């Protein structure tokens, strides 16, 4: 594994041991410098007749070796946010704001440079591993191609050896056999491992995992989550994981950004957000999870259903379903407020402004 680790410079300490530094903190050393800084990201899908704004001003920072979970229900824009970072929508979407990766704004990069960033510095693990692999080529040859295209290995032999090593890294017991297999010969879990091997092959700084376990069975899902955590631990990669599963978000730890209707409505360390939510939506979401303790038929649900994409109401997007909504909620859309160190929530009603809370530098610049 030394080879993999050396690519990222010094081995990073596990994330829990790193001191909590403000995202915009001035004391950021190069090693601590955020590899990914997303500011006011806005994604609008454009068709001939219509413009649909799906992501509406999302900002967050992902530091080295850190995990950020984007948690949200369908249509919340969590997946679009992750994919917009890599500009995967081409001309069908207009993307505004800034996506800084190592000082460069990915949104300004020409297409050619962007291609080397994709798969190189930022890699994607999609939900469905089948779509990410070429069905007509052996796993090994797909891996060696990526390694050679990105200039990691120059000779075929070295690339092949490296490919097998990568397969072993992602917990595939017999890499030599898997390398000569076609995707359809592998099970879902093995395929997802192969995709992960592909994603980490170029030692990316940021790994974007879009619902990486949703298509898998619960017992296999557990394996893949362990693997991702382990890889992140060893390689120091920052992980941006998109999920709809509160359980997954809680288990994987790191920080959580709760998305609703194209916005981040709450942000903070996973354990804090899930144990003491500060936005009514997060609260409602957690309370609606079925548990054996709750009497049958007495789950606390959120009234109504999430707004459809492009049907966002005026004012706070959650106001129509919110039990705490007041008149002003329907008028202006509250920004993500800093409510505690490292925590934000976009609800002034549930978090009335306290007079002495200005020590923390604002994150929404």
């Amino acid at each position, binding site marked *: 594994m030394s080879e993999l680790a050396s690519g990222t410079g010094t081995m990073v300490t596990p994330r829990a041991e790193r001191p909590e530094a403000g995202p915009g903190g001035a004391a950021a050393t190069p090693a601590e410098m955020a590899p990914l800084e997303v500011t006011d990201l806005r994604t609008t899908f454009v068709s001939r007749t*219509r*413009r649909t704004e799906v992501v509406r001003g999302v900002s967050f920072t992902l530091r080295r070796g850190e995990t950020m979970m984007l948690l949200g229900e369908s249509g919340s824009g969590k997946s679009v946010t992750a994919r917009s970072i890599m500009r995967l929508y081409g001309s069908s979407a207009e993307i505004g704001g800034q996506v800084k990766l190592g000082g460069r704004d990915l949104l300004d990069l020409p297409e050619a440079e962007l291609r080397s960033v994709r798969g190189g510095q930022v890699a994607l693990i999609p939900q469905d591993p089948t779509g990410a692999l070429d069905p007509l080529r052996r796993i090994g040859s797909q891996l060696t191609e990526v390694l050679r295209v990105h200039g990691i290995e120059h000779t075929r032999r070295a690339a092949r050896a490296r490919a097998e090593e990568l397969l072993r890294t992602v917990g595939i017991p017999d890499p030599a056999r898997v390398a000569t297999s076609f995707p359809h010969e592998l099970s879902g879990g093995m395929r997802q491992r192969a995709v992960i091997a592909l994603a980490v092959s170029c030692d990316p700084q940021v790994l974007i995992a879009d619902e990486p376990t949703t298509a898998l069975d619960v017992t296999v899902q557990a394996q893949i989550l362990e693997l991702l955590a382990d890889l992140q631990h060893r390689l120091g990669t920052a992980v941006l994981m998109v999920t709809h599963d509160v359980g997954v978000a809680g288990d994987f730890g790191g920080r959580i950004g709760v998305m609703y209707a194209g916005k981040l409505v709450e942000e903070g360390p996973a354990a804090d957000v899930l144990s003491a939510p500060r936005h009514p939506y997060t609260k409602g979401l957690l309370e609606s999870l079925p548990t054996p303790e709750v009497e049958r038929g007495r789950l606390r649900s959120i009234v109504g259903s999430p707004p459809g994409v*492009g049907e966002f109401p005026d004012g706070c997007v959650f106001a129509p379903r919110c039990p705490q909504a007041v008149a002003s909620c329907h008028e202006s859309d509250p*920004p993500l407020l800093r409510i505690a160190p490292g925590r934000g929530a976009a609800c002034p009603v549930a978090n009335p402004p306290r007079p002495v809370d200005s020590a923390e530098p604002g994150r929404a610049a």
Partner: protein
Amino acid sequence: MTALTDVAPPRPPAATGVTRRRRRRMSTTARIAVVVVGLIVAVAVIGPFLVGDPNVGDTSRRLLAVGSPGHVFGTDGQGRDVLSRLVVGTRLSLLAGLVPVLFAAVLGTGLGMTAGLSGVWGHRTIMRTLDVFYAFPAVLLAIAIAAALGSGVSNSIIALAVILVPPVARVAETETRRLVDLDYMEAARASGASRGSIALRQVLPNVAPPVVVYCTALIGLSIVYAAGLSFLGLGVSPPTAEWGLMVSDHTQYIYSAPFLAAIPALAILIASVAFNVLGDGLRDLLDVRGEVRA
């Protein structure tokens, strides 16, 4: 940073709640096609009452050029008014194109749905039988059938209906197969409904729109085929006014009156394209889902 002093970020002007409403719109070209098809149908219905007898010709005034006084489109080799013949011929040309498609639509949908809903053997029997017709080039098959039956409008219609059934059945079968395993079909079966009831009330509403779209486009093709059969002498017989026959008739004078043959040919082309474009337009119109696919 205090809470409420922050300005809400700019929002797009899009009004809420609009997007879910159904949008049934046709493109401009499709609308033009609607107008053209409407005109053709109008001419077919009332045209014959507005123009003179198409079969009366004055041989002294044969092969007059386009724009001649009294004969806007000129006259043909026997001195008959081309405009009159074109207008009167519309009805027959249109019927010869339309009727086979109607036959094929009903028969093809029935066969396709039956194949799609029946078991392995029923499906195989029906689809393999239809494949036999696919093995022959459609035009050749139509010619062969028409030739075997003898010339005449009804035989030309039968020949065309036969060659149009397999593709329509294929469309209906594909759509039916797509539905068979869907949840609502399972729910329908679990409801205890009979097969016929499921076919009529659950499957047909789904199969009909693509079949209608496909058949509308087929009308254009069928008009061309019908005209082709007449051109070959397998459709209507002279002196009946019909577009295909007119083209055949006019080509004799290709050297003395080169544009004469182009007039009925153009009519065939316009009708055919109009129905094709109309078919495309209907596809957008009949898509209940509208534009958004979330």
